[in-house]
């Protein structure tokens, strides 16, 4: 008799737990309150001055919910699945193209973004590579990829990707440990497009990279910065945004855009199709394009801003006129931006890269 009683109690305890939990959940859900005055922003980590969020809230009364991601690839599945509905996202060039391809983005109503006038024409022109009609994106940060070298360890001015294949610097070269960036250097050296899908060109690039492998000290991403500052390597492939910071820490370092051309990357604001607060999103983008706000963000993250009005406001003359921070893109005719190559293209590159790494 008594044993039966215990048995019958267990389901009821479980049931009670379920009830308590579902109550707790609905409590969490309803606390979001009035959705009208929110904007949900999904940005790179450390990619915005937190003060500007406070200013935006003060001026517009729109509450900002701020969320961060670490890579384009980590962001994409969350947005595609619709896990959390974001209003504004800041992906990179090729990822924006992929999101357009997957029909995830909404057209931006530029009537609501008068501050677009602050964004330089050359940057909008460059954006056409991934957003052909400038309908979906507003540039936020940009930069180039180039060679960082230590003047005390490398002779003469460097101006070509070929220095990465120079045997004098064996074991003193740092390469980027990412498929597209690594292939970009080889493809550009061979005079090809970095978005090529031509198997012959890619095969040649692969062989170049295999030839280079014995000379490379390490394939790294973040460590290029610290290793170059510490003088642990003579030459490294690096993003221009890091170059100014490394120069400040070690004046011997020099950054150069090779004459064969390079990758111009652009991170832009976009609005996903399922954004619940599209107008607030546009207000947010407009605010981010205001010159004083863009300046604040530039000073915080030190990546180049495409905001011409903000560039004018920079007080430090050296940075204002720096060719590293603000290269004249129109001066080069061989700059490219990464395209989304489709699933097959990605696989082709990845397989070749595996061959390089496993050699």
């Amino acid at each position, binding site marked *: 008799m008594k044993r039966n009683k215990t048995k019958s*109690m267990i389901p009821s305890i479980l049931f009670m737990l379920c009830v308590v939990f579902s109550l707790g959940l609905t409590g969490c859900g309803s606390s979001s309150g009035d959705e009208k005055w929110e904007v949900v922003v999904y940005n790179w980590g450390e990619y915005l001055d937190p003060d500007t969020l406070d200013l935006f809230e003060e001026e517009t009364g729109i509450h900002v919910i701020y969320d961060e991601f*670490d890579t384009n690839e980590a962001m994409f599945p969350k947005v595609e699945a619709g896990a959390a509905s974001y209003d504004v996202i800041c992906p990179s060039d090729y990822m924006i193209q992929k999101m357009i391809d997957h029909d995830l983005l909404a057209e931006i109503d530029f009537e609501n973004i008068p501050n677009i006038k602050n964004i330089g024409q050359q940057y909008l022109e460059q954006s056409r590579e991934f957003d052909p009609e400038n309908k979906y994106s507003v540039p936020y940060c940009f930069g180039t990829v180039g060679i960082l070298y230590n003047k005390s360890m490398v002779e003469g001015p460097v101006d070509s990707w070929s220095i990465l294949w120079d045997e004098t610097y064996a074991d003193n070269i740092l390469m980027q440990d990412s498929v597209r960036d690594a292939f970009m250097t080889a493809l550009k050296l061979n005079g090809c497009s970095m978005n090529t899908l031509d198997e012959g060109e890619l095969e040649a690039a692969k062989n170049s990279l295999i030839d280079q492998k014995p000379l490379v000290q390490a394939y790294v991403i973040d460590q290029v910065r610290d290793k170059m500052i510490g003088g642990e390597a003579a030459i490294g492939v690096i993003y221009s945004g890091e170059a100014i910071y490394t120069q400040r820490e070690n004046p011997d370092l020099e950054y150069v855009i090779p004459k064969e051309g390079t990758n111009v990357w652009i991170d832009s604001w976009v609005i996903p199709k399922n954004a619940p607060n599209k107008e607030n999103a546009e207000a947010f983008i407009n605010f981010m394009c205001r010159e004083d706000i863009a300046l604040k963000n530039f000073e915080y993250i030190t990546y180049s801003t495409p905001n011409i009005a903000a560039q004018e406001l920079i007080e430090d003359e050296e940075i204002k006129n720096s060719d590293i921070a603000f290269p004249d893109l129109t001066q080069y005719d061989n700059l490219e931006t990464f395209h989304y190559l489709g699933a097959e293209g990605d696989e082709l590159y990845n397989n070749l890269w595996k061959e390089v790494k496993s050699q």
Partner: protein
Amino acid sequence: MIKNTAKKLYLSLILIFLYAPILVLILYSFNASRTRAKWGGFTFKWYGKLFKNQEILGALFNTLFIALVSSVTAAVIGTIACIAIMNLKKRPRAVILGITNIPMLNADIVTGISLMLLFISMGIKFGLGTILLSHITFCIPYVILSVMPRMKQLNPHIYEAALDLGAGPVYGFFKVVFPEIFPGVLSGFLMAFTMSLDDFIITHFTKGAGIDTLSTKIYTEVKKGIKPEMYALSTLIFLTVLILLLLVNQQPGGNKSPSGKNISEKGV
């Protein structure tokens, strides 16, 4: 003699491999320069900045809150599940135990994505609630894993005797069964706590906008380089754990497991 030095060498090698990374991290938390390539002088400024950084402190609070709530809930649910599993016949028991083991062997990313898809299809709003639900889900098997052996050792006749002597089932459970299985529940709870504290990938897929735990917060800093404040925080967490361990080990009275008690009594 040689055997002894070899023993000591082996032990110290193990300790060096375990603790060298932590020591390096502690060292960098006092480095005035932001880059790891340069020693900019000794400073406490990252500790000061840490306590002013609301985002990091918020993430720390979330992490601890989620770990505590999910491990306590998982301990309760897991223990109840064990009682039920014990009352099953042999075959269904083996089947159920197998089923509860699968989620532990499953890759985290599979668990994470499938939980995300489940929540989407159920229309649950992503936020603290979804993180808690998924943490409880992946913690339960660990509790069952550590409570089950204790349950099996239990002499079922003691509980029956308690009932015969007039105890109600609940009273009987808490007076007779629970003290016996308590060490198992405790270690299950602790295991769940650390699993929840550590988790990144499941949290990443099930969190909503604007809520971060320490691990997701640190991951987002990868692009721009991890802030030295994080080194400071990690140092503090390490020291807290160290001090806690020292305190626990100092007073043998703190060890409440029945077996431990017996040993100390015998010693006296």
